């Protein structure tokens, strides 16, 4: 069946009105959208979902006009774009970003992974200790006490 409106494309939307009188319409998707009968379904990417979340979150907490002293990006602009302006934004917007980061990362607040080989020894030690403490906690939760003892010894060695 061909669309009644453009007489070109295949009609995929079929409408039956019963009021004020019974009437059938057969439209293609484009014409149906133009007529406002159907609304185009857009796919939401992670960024879009994140933007919605930021808006929702900060709508309650305010902070829209907070700006980064380094790049000049305001928190409101971040809400719209879903992208930060420079590495310093993580410091400038820390109070607003922390709950967001926590929620996006299953409660994670501290990096326990790779440290750049050029980072200084204290940073390497700090991250290493965090990772080991997390491993210790996991080992205890899994009742793997042999592993827990091993990790505990590693922590002691590193702390000294």
């Amino acid at each position, binding site marked *: 069946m061909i669309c009644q409106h453009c007489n070109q494309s295949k009609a995929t939307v079929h409408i039956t009105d019963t009021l004020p009188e019974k009437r059938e319409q057969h439209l293609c998707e484009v014409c149906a959208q133009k007529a406002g009968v159907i609304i185009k379904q857009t*796919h939401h*990417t*992670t*960024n879009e979902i*994140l933007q919605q979340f930021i808006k929702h979150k900060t709508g309650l907490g305010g902070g829209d006009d907070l700006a980064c002293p*380094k*790049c*000049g*990006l305001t928190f409101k602009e971040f809400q719209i*774009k*879903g*992208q*930060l*302006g*420079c*590495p310093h*934004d*993580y410091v400038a917007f820390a109070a607003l*970003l922390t709950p*967001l*980061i926590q929620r*996006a*990362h*299953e*409660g*994670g*607040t*501290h*990096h*326990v*992974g*790779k*440290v*750049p*080989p*050029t*980072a200084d020894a204290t*940073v390497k030690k*700090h*991250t290493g200790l965090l*990772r080991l403490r*997390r491993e210790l906690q996991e080992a205890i939760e899994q009742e793997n006490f042999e592993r827990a003892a091993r990790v505990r010894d590693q922590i002691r060695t590193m702390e000294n």
Partner: protein
Amino acid sequence: MSIDDLTKSTGAWLRGDGPMSDVVVSSRIRLARNLAEHPFLSTADAGERMEIYRCISLAITSTAAGADDILVDLETANAIDRRLLVERHLISRQHAAGEGSRGVAISPAETRAAMINEEDHLRLQGLRSGLQLEELWKEINEIDDALSKSLPFAFDRQLGYLTACPTNVGTGIRVSVMLHLPALRLTKEIERVARAAKDLRLAVRGTYGEGTEAVGDLYQVSNQTTLGKSEEGIIGAFSESIIPNIVGYERTARETLARHHESQLDDRIWRAYGVLSNARRISSGETQTLLSPIRMGIQMDRFKEFDLATLHEIFLYTQPAHLQKMHGRPLDEEQRAVARADYIRKRLA
């Protein structure tokens, strides 16, 4: 080497070998990195973008591993070449459609591609056929180490690697495995698997990543959490439990089909072969949909008319940019449909 040289083969991730390759098509790991002394791309001006591009491309080609890389300037590359790189999974669709100074450095074997000025300054990614995450991590980690020596990456003691979007902060790692799950879809169990994956905070996406459909029963499973877990922890979960579990479900579903629905299964495979080897015009989507049962048939030893290498060639070369590259000129949709059907018939004759 140039882009034209790439089209002479199907690329390493489509070799069809590697562990669990009956279900796992390919493994991918990417790291997001940014230069500490430059703003992120959303606020960088044209001059800064050029400087970032220059610094990173130079650093990559100066490493031992990247010395022979093919550097493609995407700002000047034509639309067909950009699309071709998307079809080969070397750049994202966003990167192909982006603006301003940007590019990609590709290793000659296509096992590694570094996108420069995509969402982050650098997105270093490795690709392999089958489930090979540990090997992949070793290679990517070494190159990241080598690059760290000349490129000061934005890193924070608490938050780890700083990224343009806070959803990637921490390790900046995205582990992504492409799975072929035709039997789970046929037995209608795919939704259950997708729900279980979502409960584990994993993303299940279509063939070309975010916002794309699963054409030809190809699904990508990837991690979403990047902070609070180590790279080895994330990779270990994928290679030791998440992927082997899904592979197990798919294999069981295939056995069920073979045992209880043998004639329907073979009918599906052979009808697909019939259409592919006789069609006079065919779309890219239909081609990929029809290749799916045949791929399953090959992996289940039920179909021997052609092998997996031939299937992968058809899979890749029938996509729009590859077809146009092969013909050496732009083709409209109708011309492509005819050219595609011709190519498949000749390849299967």
